[in-house]
Protein backbone atom coordinates (compact mmCIF):
# COMPACT_ATOMS: atom_id res chain seq x y z
CA UNK A 1 0.00 0.00 0.00
CA UNK A 2 1.28 3.43 -0.91
CA UNK A 3 0.52 6.71 0.85
CA UNK A 4 -1.96 9.00 -0.85
CA UNK A 5 -1.87 12.79 -0.97
CA UNK A 6 -4.27 15.57 -1.95
CA UNK A 7 -2.53 17.50 -4.75
CA UNK A 8 -5.36 19.74 -5.89
CA UNK A 9 -8.43 21.30 -4.29
CA UNK A 10 -11.24 23.53 -5.51
CA UNK A 11 -14.76 24.55 -4.62
CA UNK A 12 -17.45 26.97 -5.68
CA UNK A 13 -18.90 29.59 -3.41
CA UNK A 14 -21.74 27.99 -1.47
CA UNK A 15 -25.09 29.71 -1.85
CA UNK A 16 -27.64 29.97 -4.65
CA UNK A 17 -26.58 28.72 -8.08
CA UNK A 18 -29.28 28.55 -10.75
CA UNK A 19 -27.14 26.52 -13.17
CA UNK A 20 -26.91 22.95 -14.48
CA UNK A 21 -25.16 20.50 -12.15
CA UNK A 22 -22.47 19.81 -14.78
CA UNK A 23 -21.54 23.49 -15.07
CA UNK A 24 -21.59 23.98 -11.31
CA UNK A 25 -19.38 20.94 -10.74
CA UNK A 26 -16.98 21.93 -13.53
CA UNK A 27 -16.11 25.17 -11.72
CA UNK A 28 -14.88 23.21 -8.69
CA UNK A 29 -13.25 20.43 -10.72
CA UNK A 30 -11.32 22.78 -13.02
CA UNK A 31 -9.96 24.61 -9.97
CA UNK A 32 -8.87 21.30 -8.43
CA UNK A 33 -7.29 20.04 -11.68
CA UNK A 34 -5.45 23.32 -12.28
CA UNK A 35 -4.31 23.42 -8.65
CA UNK A 36 -2.91 19.90 -9.14
CA UNK A 37 -1.40 20.85 -12.50
CA UNK A 38 -3.26 17.85 -13.91
CA UNK A 39 -4.69 17.54 -17.40
CA UNK A 40 -7.93 15.56 -17.76
CA UNK A 41 -5.81 12.85 -19.45
CA UNK A 42 -3.88 12.40 -16.17
CA UNK A 43 -7.06 11.33 -14.33
CA UNK A 44 -7.52 7.55 -14.13
CA UNK A 45 -10.96 7.51 -12.49
CA UNK A 46 -13.70 9.82 -11.21
CA UNK A 47 -15.50 9.28 -7.89
CA UNK A 48 -18.58 11.49 -7.47
CA UNK A 49 -20.71 12.27 -4.46
CA UNK A 50 -24.29 13.35 -5.15
CA UNK A 51 -27.18 12.44 -2.91
CA UNK A 52 -30.37 13.76 -4.47
CA UNK A 53 -30.08 14.89 -8.10
CA UNK A 54 -32.83 12.50 -9.15
CA UNK A 55 -35.22 14.24 -6.78
CA UNK A 56 -33.96 17.82 -7.07
CA UNK A 57 -33.01 18.09 -10.73
CA UNK A 58 -34.60 15.07 -12.42
CA UNK A 59 -31.07 14.10 -13.37
CA UNK A 60 -29.41 10.72 -12.70
CA UNK A 61 -26.48 8.72 -14.13
CA UNK A 62 -24.61 11.85 -13.23
CA UNK A 63 -20.96 10.75 -12.97
CA UNK A 64 -20.30 10.09 -16.68
CA UNK A 65 -22.24 13.23 -17.59
CA UNK A 66 -20.00 15.37 -15.39
CA UNK A 67 -16.85 13.58 -16.60
CA UNK A 68 -17.85 14.13 -20.25
CA UNK A 69 -18.46 17.81 -19.59
CA UNK A 70 -14.86 17.98 -18.33
CA UNK A 71 -13.44 16.12 -21.33
CA UNK A 72 -12.83 12.92 -19.38
CA UNK A 73 -15.25 10.47 -21.04
CA UNK A 74 -13.84 6.96 -21.14
CA UNK A 75 -12.54 6.58 -17.57
CA UNK A 76 -14.40 4.62 -14.88
CA UNK A 77 -16.92 6.91 -13.16
CA UNK A 78 -18.68 5.96 -9.94
CA UNK A 79 -21.36 7.77 -7.97
CA UNK A 80 -21.85 7.50 -4.19
CA UNK A 81 -24.94 8.21 -2.10
CA UNK A 82 -24.82 8.28 1.69
CA UNK A 83 -27.04 11.24 2.50
CA UNK A 84 -24.91 14.06 3.95
CA UNK A 85 -21.79 11.82 4.17
CA UNK A 86 -21.89 11.21 0.43
CA UNK A 87 -18.69 12.75 -0.86
CA UNK A 88 -16.43 11.78 2.03
CA UNK A 89 -17.42 8.21 1.21
CA UNK A 90 -16.45 8.85 -2.42
CA UNK A 91 -13.14 10.28 -1.14
CA UNK A 92 -12.54 7.24 1.07
CA UNK A 93 -13.01 4.85 -1.84
CA UNK A 94 -10.81 6.94 -4.13
CA UNK A 95 -8.01 6.98 -1.56
CA UNK A 96 -8.26 3.22 -0.99
CA UNK A 97 -8.17 2.58 -4.75
CA UNK A 98 -5.00 4.66 -5.16
CA UNK A 99 -3.41 3.13 -2.05
CA UNK A 100 -4.10 -0.34 -3.42
CA UNK A 101 -2.45 0.53 -6.72
CA UNK A 102 -5.63 0.33 -8.79
CA UNK A 103 -5.24 3.92 -10.01
CA UNK A 104 -2.49 6.53 -9.83
CA UNK A 105 -4.56 9.70 -9.85
CA UNK A 106 -8.27 10.16 -9.15
CA UNK A 107 -10.65 13.12 -9.28
CA UNK A 108 -13.09 13.11 -6.34
CA UNK A 109 -15.89 15.59 -6.00
CA UNK A 110 -19.38 16.36 -4.91
CA UNK A 111 -22.16 18.56 -6.19
CA UNK A 112 -25.70 19.27 -5.02
CA UNK A 113 -28.48 21.78 -5.54
CA UNK A 114 -30.85 22.29 -2.60
CA UNK A 115 -32.05 25.92 -2.79
CA UNK A 116 -35.34 27.21 -4.23
CA UNK A 117 -33.37 27.75 -7.48
CA UNK A 118 -34.22 24.07 -8.09
CA UNK A 119 -37.90 25.08 -8.25
CA UNK A 120 -38.58 23.20 -5.00
CA UNK A 121 -39.96 25.12 -2.02
CA UNK A 122 -39.09 24.57 1.64
CA UNK A 123 -41.74 21.86 2.20
CA UNK A 124 -40.70 19.99 -0.94
CA UNK A 125 -36.97 20.15 -0.16
CA UNK A 126 -37.71 19.17 3.46
CA UNK A 127 -39.44 16.08 2.02
CA UNK A 128 -36.45 15.33 -0.24
CA UNK A 129 -34.10 15.52 2.77
CA UNK A 130 -36.50 13.40 4.86
CA UNK A 131 -36.23 10.60 2.30
CA UNK A 132 -32.92 9.74 4.00
CA UNK A 133 -34.92 8.70 7.08
CA UNK A 134 -36.38 5.17 7.28
CA UNK A 135 -39.18 4.87 4.69
CA UNK A 136 -41.49 2.69 6.81
CA UNK A 137 -40.61 3.48 10.44
CA UNK A 138 -39.55 7.16 10.42
CA UNK A 139 -40.95 9.06 7.43
CA UNK A 140 -44.65 8.30 8.19
CA UNK A 141 -44.40 10.17 11.53
CA UNK A 142 -43.49 13.36 9.65
CA UNK A 143 -39.96 13.30 11.03
CA UNK A 144 -37.68 15.85 9.34
CA UNK A 145 -33.89 16.13 9.56
CA UNK A 146 -34.02 19.07 11.94
CA UNK A 147 -36.38 16.76 13.86
CA UNK A 148 -33.87 13.86 13.84
CA UNK A 149 -31.21 16.06 15.42
CA UNK A 150 -33.89 17.65 17.59
CA UNK A 151 -34.56 14.20 19.09
CA UNK A 152 -30.84 13.59 19.72
CA UNK A 153 -30.22 17.06 21.11
CA UNK A 154 -33.32 17.16 23.34
CA UNK A 155 -32.07 13.92 24.92
CA UNK A 156 -28.58 15.43 25.34
CA UNK A 157 -30.11 18.45 27.07
CA UNK A 158 -32.02 16.09 29.39
CA UNK A 159 -29.02 13.93 30.24
CA UNK A 160 -26.34 16.59 30.56
CA UNK A 161 -28.11 19.91 31.12
CA UNK A 162 -27.10 21.36 27.76
CA UNK A 163 -28.97 24.63 27.20
CA UNK A 164 -30.46 26.55 24.28
CA UNK A 165 -27.93 29.31 25.02
CA UNK A 166 -25.11 26.78 24.58
CA UNK A 167 -26.60 25.67 21.25
CA UNK A 168 -26.82 29.30 20.16
CA UNK A 169 -23.15 29.83 21.03
CA UNK A 170 -22.22 27.27 18.35
CA UNK A 171 -24.15 29.30 15.75
CA UNK A 172 -22.51 32.53 16.93
CA UNK A 173 -19.02 30.99 16.66
CA UNK A 174 -19.57 29.47 13.24
CA UNK A 175 -21.18 32.62 11.85
CA UNK A 176 -18.13 34.57 13.09
CA UNK A 177 -15.82 32.08 11.35
CA UNK A 178 -17.97 32.35 8.21
CA UNK A 179 -17.34 36.08 8.00
CA UNK A 180 -13.66 35.20 7.38
CA UNK A 181 -14.49 32.82 4.51
CA UNK A 182 -15.27 34.47 1.16
CA UNK A 183 -16.86 31.20 -0.07
CA UNK A 184 -19.37 31.03 2.82
CA UNK A 185 -23.09 31.43 2.24
CA UNK A 186 -23.52 33.55 5.40
CA UNK A 187 -21.05 36.39 5.76
CA UNK A 188 -22.60 38.05 8.78
CA UNK A 189 -22.24 37.65 12.52
CA UNK A 190 -25.12 36.74 14.78
CA UNK A 191 -25.73 36.89 18.54
CA UNK A 192 -27.10 34.49 21.13
CA UNK A 193 -30.11 36.81 21.56
CA UNK A 194 -30.79 36.84 17.81
CA UNK A 195 -30.58 33.03 17.62
CA UNK A 196 -32.97 32.65 20.57
CA UNK A 197 -35.50 35.07 19.04
CA UNK A 198 -35.74 33.07 15.79
CA UNK A 199 -38.70 30.90 14.82
CA UNK A 200 -38.57 27.21 15.79
CA UNK A 201 -37.76 24.81 12.93
CA UNK A 202 -37.78 21.65 15.06
CA UNK A 203 -37.28 22.04 18.80
CA UNK A 204 -34.84 22.78 20.30
CA UNK A 205 -33.58 24.29 17.03
CA UNK A 206 -34.53 27.75 15.84
CA UNK A 207 -33.82 29.08 12.38
CA UNK A 208 -30.24 30.15 13.12
CA UNK A 209 -29.43 26.80 14.78
CA UNK A 210 -29.89 25.24 11.33
CA UNK A 211 -27.64 25.17 8.28
CA UNK A 212 -29.18 26.74 5.17
CA UNK A 213 -30.32 25.11 1.95
CA UNK A 214 -27.29 25.46 -0.36
CA UNK A 215 -26.12 24.86 -3.89
CA UNK A 216 -22.45 24.18 -4.54
CA UNK A 217 -19.65 21.87 -5.57
CA UNK A 218 -16.21 20.82 -4.33
CA UNK A 219 -13.44 18.67 -5.78
CA UNK A 220 -9.99 17.32 -4.94
CA UNK A 221 -7.36 15.38 -6.86
CA UNK A 222 -5.62 12.54 -5.01
CA UNK A 223 -2.50 10.77 -6.19
CA UNK A 224 0.10 8.26 -5.02
CA UNK A 225 2.91 9.49 -2.81
CA UNK A 226 5.72 8.85 -5.31
CA UNK A 227 4.04 11.01 -7.98
CA UNK A 228 4.00 14.11 -5.75
CA UNK A 229 6.48 16.84 -6.66
CA UNK A 230 5.78 19.23 -3.79
CA UNK A 231 4.75 17.35 -0.63
CA UNK A 232 4.63 20.60 1.37
CA UNK A 233 1.51 21.63 -0.53
CA UNK A 234 0.04 18.10 -0.69
CA UNK A 235 -1.46 16.92 2.61
CA UNK A 236 -1.10 13.19 3.23
CA UNK A 237 -4.24 11.18 3.96
CA UNK A 238 -3.14 9.77 7.30
CA UNK A 239 -6.29 7.87 8.28
CA UNK A 240 -9.91 7.30 7.35
CA UNK A 241 -12.62 5.70 9.48
CA UNK A 242 -16.03 4.79 8.11
CA UNK A 243 -18.68 3.35 10.42
CA UNK A 244 -22.44 2.95 10.57
CA UNK A 245 -25.07 2.70 13.30
CA UNK A 246 -28.52 1.12 13.39
CA UNK A 247 -31.44 2.43 11.34
CA UNK A 248 -34.12 3.39 12.31
CA UNK A 249 -33.06 5.80 15.02
CA UNK A 250 -35.18 4.14 17.71
CA UNK A 251 -33.08 0.95 17.52
CA UNK A 252 -29.84 2.80 18.34
CA UNK A 253 -28.52 1.74 21.73
CA UNK A 254 -27.59 5.32 22.73
CA UNK A 255 -29.14 8.40 21.12
CA UNK A 256 -26.54 10.93 22.25
CA UNK A 257 -23.37 8.92 21.57
CA UNK A 258 -23.50 9.16 17.75
CA UNK A 259 -21.76 5.77 17.90
CA UNK A 260 -20.89 5.70 14.20
CA UNK A 261 -18.79 8.84 14.76
CA UNK A 262 -17.04 7.28 17.77
CA UNK A 263 -16.27 4.13 15.79
CA UNK A 264 -15.13 6.03 12.69
CA UNK A 265 -12.95 8.32 14.82
CA UNK A 266 -11.33 5.39 16.61
CA UNK A 267 -10.45 3.80 13.27
CA UNK A 268 -9.11 7.05 11.79
CA UNK A 269 -7.02 7.89 14.87
CA UNK A 270 -5.60 4.34 14.91
CA UNK A 271 -4.63 4.44 11.23
CA UNK A 272 -3.09 7.90 11.62
CA UNK A 273 -1.44 6.84 14.89
CA UNK A 274 -2.58 10.00 16.68
CA UNK A 275 -4.75 10.94 19.65
CA UNK A 276 -7.62 13.47 19.69
CA UNK A 277 -5.29 15.96 21.41
CA UNK A 278 -2.97 15.85 18.39
CA UNK A 279 -5.62 17.35 16.09
CA UNK A 280 -4.86 21.01 15.34
CA UNK A 281 -7.98 21.94 13.36
CA UNK A 282 -11.27 20.20 12.58
CA UNK A 283 -14.20 20.57 10.23
CA UNK A 284 -17.19 18.80 11.79
CA UNK A 285 -20.73 18.12 10.60
CA UNK A 286 -22.69 20.97 12.21
CA UNK A 287 -25.90 20.62 10.19
CA UNK A 288 -27.54 21.84 13.40
CA UNK A 289 -25.86 23.46 16.41
CA UNK A 290 -26.58 20.38 18.54
CA UNK A 291 -24.82 18.19 15.99
CA UNK A 292 -21.52 20.01 16.58
CA UNK A 293 -21.86 19.40 20.33
CA UNK A 294 -22.44 15.67 19.79
CA UNK A 295 -19.57 15.57 17.26
CA UNK A 296 -16.87 17.13 19.44
CA UNK A 297 -17.76 14.67 22.21
CA UNK A 298 -17.68 11.69 19.83
CA UNK A 299 -14.31 12.83 18.45
CA UNK A 300 -12.82 13.05 21.94
CA UNK A 301 -12.12 16.79 21.84
CA UNK A 302 -14.16 17.18 25.04
CA UNK A 303 -15.57 14.72 27.57
CA UNK A 304 -18.97 13.21 26.88
CA UNK A 305 -21.64 15.54 28.25
CA UNK A 306 -19.32 18.56 28.25
CA UNK A 307 -19.82 19.57 24.60
CA UNK A 308 -22.22 22.39 25.42
CA UNK A 309 -19.49 24.38 27.17
CA UNK A 310 -16.97 24.41 24.32
CA UNK A 311 -18.36 27.16 22.11
CA UNK A 312 -19.38 29.28 25.12
CA UNK A 313 -15.87 29.10 26.57
CA UNK A 314 -14.09 29.60 23.23
CA UNK A 315 -12.44 26.17 23.23
CA UNK A 316 -13.60 25.50 19.66
CA UNK A 317 -13.22 29.03 18.28
CA UNK A 318 -10.34 30.22 16.13
CA UNK A 319 -7.60 30.94 18.66
CA UNK A 320 -9.02 28.33 21.04
CA UNK A 321 -7.60 24.99 22.11
CA UNK A 322 -9.12 23.08 19.16
CA UNK A 323 -10.57 25.31 16.44
CA UNK A 324 -13.69 23.62 15.01
CA UNK A 325 -15.22 24.70 11.72
CA UNK A 326 -12.91 27.59 10.82
CA UNK A 327 -14.68 27.64 7.42
CA UNK A 328 -17.93 28.54 9.17
CA UNK A 329 -19.00 24.91 8.97
CA UNK A 330 -22.21 23.71 7.40
CA UNK A 331 -23.93 26.32 9.56
CA UNK A 332 -22.39 29.38 7.90
CA UNK A 333 -20.43 28.11 4.91
CA UNK A 334 -23.49 26.17 3.69
CA UNK A 335 -24.44 22.54 3.13
CA UNK A 336 -24.93 21.38 -0.47
CA UNK A 337 -25.39 17.78 0.70
CA UNK A 338 -23.23 15.79 -1.70
CA UNK A 339 -20.52 18.47 -1.85
CA UNK A 340 -20.10 18.90 1.90
CA UNK A 341 -17.63 16.11 2.69
CA UNK A 342 -15.14 17.10 0.00
CA UNK A 343 -15.63 20.80 0.83
CA UNK A 344 -14.46 20.02 4.38
CA UNK A 345 -11.29 18.52 2.87
CA UNK A 346 -10.81 21.57 0.63
CA UNK A 347 -10.88 23.80 3.73
CA UNK A 348 -8.46 21.53 5.58
CA UNK A 349 -6.10 21.43 2.58
CA UNK A 350 -6.07 25.24 2.63
CA UNK A 351 -5.39 25.15 6.38
CA UNK A 352 -2.50 22.67 6.08
CA UNK A 353 -0.96 24.66 3.22
CA UNK A 354 -1.16 27.83 5.29
CA UNK A 355 -3.45 29.40 2.70
CA UNK A 356 -6.58 29.96 4.79
CA UNK A 357 -6.14 33.71 5.09
CA UNK A 358 -7.76 35.40 8.06
CA UNK A 359 -9.13 32.10 9.37
CA UNK A 360 -5.74 30.33 9.29
CA UNK A 361 -4.97 28.10 12.28
CA UNK A 362 -1.25 28.73 12.87
CA UNK A 363 1.17 25.82 12.37
CA UNK A 364 -1.54 23.24 11.84
CA UNK A 365 -0.17 19.76 11.13
CA UNK A 366 -3.05 17.33 11.78
CA UNK A 367 -6.48 18.23 10.42
CA UNK A 368 -9.66 16.20 10.91
CA UNK A 369 -12.93 16.07 8.96
CA UNK A 370 -16.11 14.56 10.47
CA UNK A 371 -18.95 14.04 7.98
CA UNK A 372 -22.20 12.46 9.15
CA UNK A 373 -25.04 11.11 7.03
CA UNK A 374 -28.65 10.13 7.59
CA UNK A 375 -30.08 9.67 11.06
CA UNK A 376 -26.52 9.56 12.48
CA UNK A 377 -26.23 6.18 10.74
CA UNK A 378 -23.13 6.90 8.63
CA UNK A 379 -20.02 8.78 9.69
CA UNK A 380 -16.67 9.19 7.98
CA UNK A 381 -13.73 10.66 9.85
CA UNK A 382 -10.67 11.64 7.81
CA UNK A 383 -7.31 12.71 9.23
CA UNK A 384 -4.95 14.71 7.02
CA UNK A 385 -1.27 15.25 7.85
CA UNK A 386 0.29 18.47 6.58
CA UNK A 387 3.72 17.58 7.92
CA UNK A 388 6.33 16.91 5.26
CA UNK A 389 7.90 13.91 6.96
CA UNK A 390 5.30 11.19 7.18
Amino acid sequence: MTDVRIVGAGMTDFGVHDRPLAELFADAAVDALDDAACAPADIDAFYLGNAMSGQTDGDTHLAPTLASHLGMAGIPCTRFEDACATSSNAFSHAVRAVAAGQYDTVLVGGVERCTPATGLGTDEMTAVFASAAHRQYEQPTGLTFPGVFGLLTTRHMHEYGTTEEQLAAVAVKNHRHGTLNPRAQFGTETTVAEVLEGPVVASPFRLLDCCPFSDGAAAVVVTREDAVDDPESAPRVAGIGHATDAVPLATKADLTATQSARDAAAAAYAEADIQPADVDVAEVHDCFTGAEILAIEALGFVDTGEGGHAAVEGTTALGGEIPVNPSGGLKAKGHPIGATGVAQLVELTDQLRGEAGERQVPDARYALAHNLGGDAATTLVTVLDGGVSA
Partner: protein
Amino acid sequence: MSDDPYSHAAWVDALRDGVLLGGRCRECGWTSATPQAACLECATRDLEPTTLPLEGTLHTETTVAVSPTGFDAPYRVGIVDLGATRLLCRLEGDAAIGDPVAFAGTLETADGEVAPLFTDADQSP
Protein backbone atom coordinates in the same frame (compact mmCIF):
# COMPACT_ATOMS: atom_id res chain seq x y z
CA MET B 1 -51.00 -8.77 2.99
CA SER B 2 -47.97 -10.92 3.59
CA ASP B 3 -48.13 -14.30 5.32
CA ASP B 4 -44.86 -13.47 7.07
CA PRO B 5 -45.80 -12.90 10.74
CA TYR B 6 -42.97 -10.38 11.14
CA SER B 7 -43.17 -8.26 7.97
CA HIS B 8 -43.99 -4.60 7.43
CA ALA B 9 -47.47 -5.64 6.27
CA ALA B 10 -48.04 -7.65 9.46
CA TRP B 11 -46.71 -4.76 11.57
CA VAL B 12 -49.12 -2.32 9.90
CA ASP B 13 -52.08 -4.71 10.30
CA ALA B 14 -51.24 -5.17 13.98
CA LEU B 15 -50.89 -1.42 14.49
CA ARG B 16 -54.35 -0.83 13.00
CA ASP B 17 -55.68 -3.53 15.36
CA GLY B 18 -54.18 -1.72 18.35
CA VAL B 19 -51.24 -4.08 18.77
CA LEU B 20 -47.57 -3.09 18.80
CA LEU B 21 -45.83 -5.96 17.03
CA GLY B 22 -42.20 -6.46 18.00
CA GLY B 23 -39.63 -9.17 17.51
CA ARG B 24 -37.59 -10.91 20.20
CA CYS B 25 -34.35 -12.75 19.47
CA ARG B 26 -34.59 -16.35 20.66
CA GLU B 27 -30.79 -16.45 21.04
CA CYS B 28 -29.95 -13.32 23.00
CA GLY B 29 -33.27 -11.71 23.91
CA TRP B 30 -32.68 -8.45 22.01
CA THR B 31 -36.03 -6.97 21.05
CA SER B 32 -37.00 -4.73 18.15
CA ALA B 33 -40.17 -2.64 17.84
CA THR B 34 -40.05 -2.81 14.04
CA PRO B 35 -39.47 -5.78 11.73
CA GLN B 36 -35.93 -7.07 11.19
CA ALA B 37 -34.70 -10.03 9.16
CA ALA B 38 -32.07 -10.70 11.81
CA CYS B 39 -31.13 -9.69 15.33
CA LEU B 40 -29.19 -6.43 15.56
CA GLU B 41 -27.11 -7.76 18.46
CA CYS B 42 -26.21 -11.31 17.42
CA ALA B 43 -27.44 -11.48 13.80
CA THR B 44 -29.37 -14.69 14.36
CA ARG B 45 -32.46 -14.92 12.13
CA ASP B 46 -34.52 -16.56 14.82
CA LEU B 47 -36.74 -13.64 15.81
CA GLU B 48 -40.00 -14.46 17.52
CA PRO B 49 -42.94 -12.07 16.95
CA THR B 50 -43.93 -10.57 20.27
CA THR B 51 -46.58 -8.18 21.55
CA LEU B 52 -45.07 -5.03 23.04
CA PRO B 53 -46.59 -3.13 25.97
CA LEU B 54 -48.96 -0.29 25.04
CA GLU B 55 -47.52 2.03 27.67
CA GLY B 56 -44.01 3.35 28.13
CA THR B 57 -42.06 6.44 29.04
CA LEU B 58 -41.05 9.25 26.73
CA HIS B 59 -37.33 8.92 25.93
CA THR B 60 -36.98 12.04 23.78
CA GLU B 61 -39.13 14.36 21.68
CA THR B 62 -39.13 17.22 19.18
CA THR B 63 -41.77 19.61 17.93
CA VAL B 64 -41.57 19.81 14.15
CA ALA B 65 -42.55 23.32 13.05
CA VAL B 66 -41.39 23.13 9.42
CA SER B 67 -42.91 20.04 7.81
CA PRO B 68 -42.37 18.11 4.60
CA THR B 69 -44.97 18.15 1.83
CA GLY B 70 -48.07 16.24 2.96
CA PHE B 71 -47.76 17.05 6.68
CA ASP B 72 -49.26 19.97 8.59
CA ALA B 73 -46.91 21.47 11.19
CA PRO B 74 -46.62 21.92 14.06
CA TYR B 75 -46.67 18.44 15.54
CA ARG B 76 -44.60 16.40 17.97
CA VAL B 77 -42.50 13.33 17.21
CA GLY B 78 -41.09 11.22 20.02
CA ILE B 79 -39.24 8.05 20.87
CA VAL B 80 -41.00 5.93 23.48
CA ASP B 81 -39.14 3.54 25.77
CA LEU B 82 -41.25 0.36 25.97
CA GLY B 83 -38.88 -1.43 28.34
CA ALA B 84 -37.29 -4.02 26.10
CA THR B 85 -37.10 -1.68 23.08
CA ARG B 86 -37.92 1.79 21.78
CA LEU B 87 -40.33 3.01 19.09
CA LEU B 88 -40.50 6.26 17.10
CA CYS B 89 -44.00 7.71 17.04
CA ARG B 90 -46.16 10.75 16.50
CA LEU B 91 -46.89 12.31 19.88
CA GLU B 92 -49.99 14.11 21.14
CA GLY B 93 -50.27 15.90 24.48
CA ASP B 94 -47.66 17.58 26.67
CA ALA B 95 -45.51 14.70 27.91
CA ALA B 96 -41.91 15.58 28.75
CA ILE B 97 -38.95 13.18 28.79
CA GLY B 98 -39.55 10.56 31.49
CA ASP B 99 -43.33 11.00 31.55
CA PRO B 100 -45.65 8.01 30.98
CA VAL B 101 -47.23 7.80 27.52
CA ALA B 102 -49.69 5.35 25.99
CA PHE B 103 -50.44 4.03 22.50
CA ALA B 104 -53.45 5.92 21.14
CA GLY B 105 -53.95 4.64 17.58
CA THR B 106 -52.48 5.28 14.18
CA LEU B 107 -51.67 8.21 11.96
CA GLU B 108 -52.40 7.53 8.28
CA THR B 109 -50.33 9.62 5.87
CA ALA B 110 -51.44 11.01 2.51
CA ASP B 111 -49.27 8.45 0.72
CA GLY B 112 -50.77 5.45 2.52
CA GLU B 113 -48.13 4.88 5.19
CA VAL B 114 -48.98 4.35 8.84
CA ALA B 115 -47.29 5.60 12.01
CA PRO B 116 -48.02 4.85 15.67
CA LEU B 117 -49.55 7.63 17.75
CA PHE B 118 -48.87 8.01 21.49
CA THR B 119 -50.37 10.40 24.01
CA ASP B 120 -50.05 11.28 27.71
CA ALA B 121 -50.81 8.09 29.65
CA ASP B 122 -53.48 9.70 31.81
CA GLN B 123 -55.39 10.93 28.73
CA SER B 124 -55.45 7.69 26.75
CA PRO B 125 -58.84 6.12 25.98
